[in-house]
């Protein structure tokens, strides 16, 4: 058993691509070995800014030889068939073949073919160039005079099997046993002999190859600094994932900023630190608010203990925050209202028109929706009018992520009402599945108006999401509307705003949403069969049905219903029933059928009332009243009576039952 060590050493790999690359490498090498019959268990792979690598242990030196029995033609077959078999099985004469007997086929030729095993190192030497050449980087490049593509120029490759070189060359890059350490704290090029040696020497050259180790080390150092300075880290997993890809060996440094910057909106400070500078943000434990500090994760253990680095970063940050302050001061000199006309010059979509056009539409729409969602019409229209105005402010130009957030600040500054200011921010909500849903009626009106307009406009020009692509995030917009309606219990039938294809699109999104919420798809389908367009009613019905089916009443009713409809369906298939049958009480003979008929009749009025009130739980309980009569009927009454009148009457009774239950849901869709 032997070990395979691979490292591809290059110039700095973009941080966002590193994790995936490490996983792809492990998969591609494992697959290549598996294709040659070598099972790989637990490949270890790693990535650091300048390298990706992997180690696979317990590999055989050689794959076993493969014996294969090749069956040939019958004895006495025509010569061309025999010649063909000789060629195909690689023997020189038919005398080399064995003869076997099969009771059906008779005597026929067989050749035992032995395929020798391959050396694992050769399998690797053949596979690696192809893996490197076809590596799925999101973006790759050529360099120098070569044609090889990689994410950035490759400098060297280590490929050692059982300590010996796996010999290959791609576009002038030869495999070898050399690598380098940290760019600034390494000791030049060194040789390695195996994985243990590699780990040792790379660590000595100040590279932590495991990204989980780097992350843990960053968090450990941040923890120490926070503890020593009465600070609290505002956790940021995304940033941690990124910065661990920017350093070979993290050195965490605490930086200081001028306290006067804390006058800026905290969102602005946080974004400046995070997006522009990749700094972690801290809260003061004393005030519970943003601290005038930041955390930078450096790649260098500086000889002055990081003073120059902290100072340099603080200066850059100050320049950035001064820019932000300049935007903040400048933006507040102009009201949002006076910016609205500028939106006419911004294209929303070439075929749909300008952002100004969109605003005019959503103002009108928000006004129409306001009474339905309980919002003041004028406030809703005002919020819609100003909703997009911050897009032409300097700050949002610099930080597009702050759209809405800045709008709220500027609206407050302009003296708009709190409802309007909040609605400007919240009209984008919910942004994703984990984001919150607005509850203030003015926000709801603006959010619904914006999203409905987007969906209607894009569907009108034929820009619909496809299986793979949804460039305008229309699914997200539809889901946003669905969540707003459901969370706020809004009675807003879709038909008021959307119909046809777009309504189906909404209903499909609702189905996906409900499945994600844990409702079985057959239960969902049973309710969707009613073709309702009121989302709240649909969901209430599904919830009630879901609960009902969990009870023994529900289970039994369903089973009885299934038996009844099976009989009905079998008879309907015969095709002699015509359309809908009517029960004629005159023809009811048996007690069981009389009882079922009267149960159905009694239910009818109650059911109508409960459905009217949308009390679906009660409606279902009402249906359950039929449970005993159904079983009694099924067990004691023969539907297919010889008397055709009686037979049709009994079938009509079952149709009545089905009809009645369908008012609640299509129970036929439910798996029993």
């Amino acid at each position: 058993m032997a070990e395979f060590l691979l490292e591809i050493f290059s110039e700095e790999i973009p941080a966002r691509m590193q994790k995936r690359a490490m996983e792809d490498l492990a998969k591609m090498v494992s697959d290549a070995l598996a294709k040659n019959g070598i099972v790989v268990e637990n490949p270890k792979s790693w990535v650091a800014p300048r390298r990706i690598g992997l180690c696979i242990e317990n590999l055989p030196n050689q794959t076993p030889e493969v014996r294969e029995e090749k069956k040939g033609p019958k004895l006495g077959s025509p010569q061309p068939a025999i010649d063909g078999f000789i060629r195909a099985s690689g023997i020189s004469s038919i005398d080399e073949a064995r003869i076997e007997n099969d009771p059906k086929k008779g005597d026929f030729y067989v050749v035992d073919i032995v395929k020798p095993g391959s050396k694992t190192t050769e399998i690797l030497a053949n596979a690696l160039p192809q893996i490197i050449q076809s590596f799925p980087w999101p973006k790759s490049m050529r360099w120098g005079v070569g044609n090889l593509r990689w994410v950035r120029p490759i400098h060297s490759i280590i490929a050692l099997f059982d300590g010996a070189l796996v010999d290959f060359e791609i576009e002038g890059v030869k495999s070898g046993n050399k690598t380098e350490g940290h760019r600034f704290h390494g000791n030049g090029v060194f040789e390695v002999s195996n994985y243990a040696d590699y780990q040792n020497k790379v660590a000595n050259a100040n590279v932590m190859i495991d990204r989980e180790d780097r992350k843990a080390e960053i968090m450990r150092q941040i923890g120490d600094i926070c503890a020593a300075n009465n600070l609290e880290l505002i956790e940021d997993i995304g940033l941690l994932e990124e910065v661990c890809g920017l350093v070979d060996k993290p050195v965490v440094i605490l930086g200081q900023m001028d306290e006067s910057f804390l006058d800026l909106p905290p969102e602005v400070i946080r974004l400046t630190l995070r997006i522009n500078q990749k700094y972690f943000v801290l809260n003061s434990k004393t005030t519970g608010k943003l601290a005038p500090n930041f955390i930078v994760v450096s790649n260098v253990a500086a000889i002055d203990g990081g003073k120059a680095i902290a100072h340099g970063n603080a200066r850059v940050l100050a320049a950035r925050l001064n820019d932000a302050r300049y935007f903040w001061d400048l933006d507040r000199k102009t009201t949002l209202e006076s910016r609205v006309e500028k939106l006419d010059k911004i294209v929303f979509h070439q075929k749909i028109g300008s952002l100004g056009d969109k605003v005019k539409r959503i103002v009108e729409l928000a006004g129409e929706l306001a009474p339905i969602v309980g919002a003041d019409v004028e406030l809703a229209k005002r919020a819609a009018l100003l909703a997009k105005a911050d897009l032409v402010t300097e700050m949002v130009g610099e930080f597009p992520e702050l759209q809405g957030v800045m709008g709220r600040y500027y609206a407050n500054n302009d003296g708009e009402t709190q409802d309007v200011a909040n609605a400007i921010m919240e009209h984008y909500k919910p942004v994703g599945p984990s984001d919150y849903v607005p509850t203030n009626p003015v926000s709801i009106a603006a959010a619904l108006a914006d999203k409905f307009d987007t969906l209607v406009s894009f569907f009108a020009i034929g820009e619909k999401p496809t299986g793979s692509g949804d460039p305008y995030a229309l699914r997200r917009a539809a889901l946003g509307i669905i969540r707003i309606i459901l969370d706020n219990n809004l009675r807003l039938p879709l038909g008021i705003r959307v119909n046809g294809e777009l309504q189906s699109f909404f209903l499909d999104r609702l189905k996906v949403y409900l499945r994600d919420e844990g409702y079985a798809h057959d239960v969902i389908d049973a309710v969707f069969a009613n073709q309702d367009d009121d989302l709240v009613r649909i969901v209430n019905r599904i919830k009630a049905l879901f609960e009902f089916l969990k009870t023994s009443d529900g289970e039994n009713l369903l089973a009885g219903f299934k038996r009844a409809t099976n009989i009905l369906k079998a008879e309907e298939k015969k095709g002699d029933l015509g359309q809908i049958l009517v029960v004629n009480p005159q023809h009811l003979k048996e007690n069981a059928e009389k009882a079922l008929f009267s149960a159905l009749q009694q239910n009818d009025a109650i059911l109508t009332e409960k459905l009217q009130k949308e009390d679906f739980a009660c409606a279902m309980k009402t249906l359950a009243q039929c449970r005993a009569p159904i079983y009694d009927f099924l067990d004691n009454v023969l539907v297919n009576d010889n008397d055709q009148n009686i037979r049709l009457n009994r079938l009509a009774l079952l149709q009545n039952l089905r009809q009645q239950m369908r008012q609640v849901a299509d129970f036929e869709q439910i798996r029993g």
Partner: protein
Amino acid sequence: MEKQSNENISQTACLRAIAAGRKPSFQDIILTLSDYWARQGCVILQPYDTEVGAGTLHPATTLRALGERPWKAAYVQPSRRPKDGRYGENPNRLGHYYQYQVILKPNPINLQELYLNSLYEIGIDPKLHDIRFVEDDWENPTVGAWGLGWEVWCDGMEVSQFTYFQQVGGFDCKPVSGELTYGLERLTMYVQGVENVYDIDFNGQGVTYGDVFHENEVEQSTFNFEYSNVEILERWFKDAETQCNILLDAKLPLPAFDWALKASHLFNLMDARGVVSPTERQSFIARVRDLAKGSAAAWIDKLEEQKQEALK
């Protein structure tokens, strides 16, 4: 890379300044970079004599990146971005600034090392500062060019752009050129520790960047935003376009490219007036791109002709 004795290094302008107990001046940095890249075999060129929005647009980079012939050059290029003018009031933004541009074709495999050495010679000590290569892909749609590379960060400050050219004018770069762009003002502000661009020590003998350029920023901003005449600009744009097309028909890629650059600058001036609607904007950019791409294509044809000629 060539070995240099310490004595040689101590002769660079920056290290002389440091030895004399002062921070390197703006021109010390320019002189040091030129000296350094000259030692790496670069042709040291002078700025191109027409307005460009970025140092890349100097034909020594844009056109020379095409074709097979090896090429090494370095130069300072004033860049004009009318829209970025701030009447000399913003400490970080300028409508006219300098870039130091290096192109090495094909890129040597140790280009990162060569680049880092240039920083050391300016006086940035890698044992004291955190130098990082952060992903940043470069694209210039108006000349149909793109490449992959990084922003180079020094203590969180972007001091250079490092790019491996993949395409120019829509044509594959074969071989690939390595391009380095140093933002000279930013780099100097960093090295000198000043917070305002106008406070930069220009020559080490009392002249500041503000002394040299402040009035220019004020007046050029006034021109860009208040006095440039859009009708005239539009007319000139059309004329530049016509002239470029005449030159393309005549198979004269070098002057054609000059007129493509002029059209590009005229568009930038119009854009600064804020009168170009988004749709028009797209159409102007497309027109400039056609001119630039046409020049690149004509240049490639020319190189091919010359190659055939040489084979005869």
